[in-house]
């Protein structure tokens, strides 16, 4: 019985959280804000970071004893969905999942965690490296004698931050280091993305860095943080496709051709219904995955599997929903003046980030095979 009461209370907390996040984003201008920021050069708003921090957003999944709200990943997922609905350009998921995810696991007492939760500083996390045909399997960015040498790729939110958390290879395995944005020997190349944001390619040549953590814990924390972020990116996609679906549903009710709303044509009705089903499945999947990831008994491998499942499903749904939504808009859907294109573009970026659906289906099956073998 107790369990059920707790669940109900949790659900109520999440509902309130969703409501307040939605109000905050809507007041700020919804997706119009994203369009304005994109047109102004693809930056995000520092004011929004402060406002979100004030609402406790960045610490939502951080344990209370480390200065967070301790509400878990499910709550972070609720926020990520709201971020997706308004395609907010701030690196919210990357901050919650990667930056804060690493800091609170590896150096909870470092002042940086408090500042990141408080929105006083925004950091980007650099962990992947580019190989000749895609993501490099190993790590060749080296940390030695207080200096970093090498390169990192696909750094979300890399342009405009105060500094970087960099996962590198130390003398005894992985290390987590911190590099200031203006550090000597650091070069940041922002590659423009479909939604106007930039993914950073970072290179270091004897760049001074602060050692934050080392040892086996770094590898473990990174794996967990990447799982979290992947699942949260899935939640962001679910929010995005949910809103895209609402937009197209409105459109097909109002656009008239052949003297009736196009939503009166059965093929349009069926297509809209299929998208709706797809959206509901994606939302249920992602929410379930997040809440299972919150369970104490879920080990790292199972968390990774759940995250992959969520990202695979959400990626498929968001791509299909935004593309079909453009199709059902006709030519106006292909313009920049209508909002639906913003959603299509953002879906492209979010789907590629941290691996698309094909990639995650493979990881999912690999993880499942492994767990099966262990069982």
């Amino acid at each position, binding site marked *: 019985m107790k369990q059920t009461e707790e669940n109900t209370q949790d659900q109520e907390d999440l509902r309130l959280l969703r409501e307040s996040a939605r109000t905050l984003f809507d007041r700020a201008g919804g997706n119009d804000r994203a369009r304005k920021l994109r047109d102004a050069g693809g930056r995000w708003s520092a004011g929004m970071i402060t406002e979100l921090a004030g609402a406790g957003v960045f610490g939502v999944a951080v344990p209370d004893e480390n200065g967070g709200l301790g509400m878990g990943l499910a709550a972070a997922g609720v926020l990520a969905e709201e971020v997706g609905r308004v395609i907010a350009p701030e690196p919210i998921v990357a901050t919650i999942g990667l930056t804060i995810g690493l800091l609170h696991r590896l150096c909870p007492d470092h002042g940086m965690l408090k500042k990141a939760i408080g929105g006083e500083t925004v950091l980007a996390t650099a962990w992947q490296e580019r190989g000749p045909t895609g993501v490099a399997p190993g790590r060749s960015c080296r940390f030695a004698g207080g200096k970093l040498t090498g390169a990192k790729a696909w750094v979300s939110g890399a342009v405009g931050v105060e500094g970087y958390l960099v996962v590198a290879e130390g003398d005894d395995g992985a290390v987590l280091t911190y590099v200031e944005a203006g550090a000597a020997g650091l070069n940041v190349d922002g590659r*423009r993305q*479909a939604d106007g944001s930039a993914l950073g390619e970072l290179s270091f040549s004897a760049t001074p860095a602060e050692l934050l953590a080392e040892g086996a814990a770094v590898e473990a924390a990174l794996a967990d943080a990447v799982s979290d972020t992947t699942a949260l990116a899935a939640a962001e996609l679910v929010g995005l496709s949910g809103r895209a679906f609402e937009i197209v549903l409105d459109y097909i009710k109002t656009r008239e051709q052949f003297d009736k709303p196009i939503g009166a044509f059965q*093929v349009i009705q069926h297509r809209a219904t299929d998208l709706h089903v797809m959206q509901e499945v994606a939302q249920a999947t992602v929410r379930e995955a997040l809440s299972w990831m919150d369970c104490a008994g879920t080990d790292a491998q199972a968390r990774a599997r759940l995250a992959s499942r969520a990202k695979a499903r959400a990626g498929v749904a968001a791509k299909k929903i935004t*593309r079909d939504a453009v199709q059902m808009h006709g030519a106006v*859907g292909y313009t920049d003046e209508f909002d639906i294109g913003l959603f299509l573009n953002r879906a492209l970026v979010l789907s590629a*980030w941290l691996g698309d659906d094909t990639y995650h289906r493979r990881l999912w099956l690999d993880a499942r095979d492994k767990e099966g073998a262990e069982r």
Partner: protein
Amino acid sequence: MTDWNAMTDEDFRREVHQFFESEYPEELRHLPHRPTFAEVEHWHRKLHAKGWVAPAWPAEYGGMGLSAAKLLIFYEEQQRWGVNRGRDMGVQMVGPLIIKFGTQTQKDYWLPRILSCEDIWCQGYSEPGAGSDLANLRTRAEIDGDDFVINGQKIWTTMAHDATHIFMLVRTDPDAPKKQQGISFILAPMDQPGVEVRTIRTLAGETEFCEVFFDGARTPRENLVGELNKGWTMAKALLSFERIFIGSPSLAQNALGQLESFARGRGAFNDPVFRDRFAQAALDVEDHAALYARYADQLKRGETLGADVSMLKIWVTECFQRITELMIEAAGPDGGTIGPLQVGNVSVDVLASFYKARPTTIYGGSNEIQRNILSKAVLGLPG
């Protein structure tokens, strides 16, 4: 004049390929956007001098008069080398219509100017309230002395900001009992006070289509093609040219070539899943060409294409979209990145291809409309 059709396929292919390879400007290969005429003018001059501007037109009008098989080879080589179509609405759309319905005077005047690109054309059909339901168009043309006076608005007019002329459907008899009656097909110059063009940005950030406003614009009455108030039937004939053109394998072939070199560079061919999906796409393209050849032959024999030509467009545009989606997949974490992606010594603009593929299922009669046509006119389903 060379009789291309008398050559063997291999010889013809070699000849076409050699010309593109030696003459086509390197900087225009696989152009990711729709060019203005100024950007491709130097290439157009070469093509014109060679007599290759209109591969499908009969030789008597300055075309190459290619058979269906040769035409396919021409398009294949064009796409393989990444040769841009240039500003070809005149060649692909008005030209065939004038050849079919125009008077001798109209042919003599307009056709050479299309070939030389002295006139650059845009297509003024769609209006804000007349997209799929094209017959709902409201732009008026009234006879005033020797002229038509045009009032109204067109939209989605591709490259209207870089065109000298517009071919358009206008309402000439608002009192006709049916919407499809009372529509005429006219040609009009763009450079005049009563015509105003506003560009519209696409979601890819390009300015390739426009709104065109007509406020007392004029065009001589002799620019009516075909009979007054009979424009609808003719436009439908033109639409079947458009459909076979959009239904041609070229865009998908080009994308497939890009996918292949990109995926090789990315090592994607080591992956059995990718191999299968690539093979599917490649066969979708090849097998489509088999169907396409059937229609291209009909056209060559001078037969009118039936409603079933819609099949080509449905198949190839959706195939084109899948290919570009595979490119994004092969790009992995770079899949959201704007601009050319470098792999080895090739560079492929994955997003540009993706964006190009999206509207192909919307324009030229959306794929939903094509399916409606097929189910009623070909399958004979009720409703």
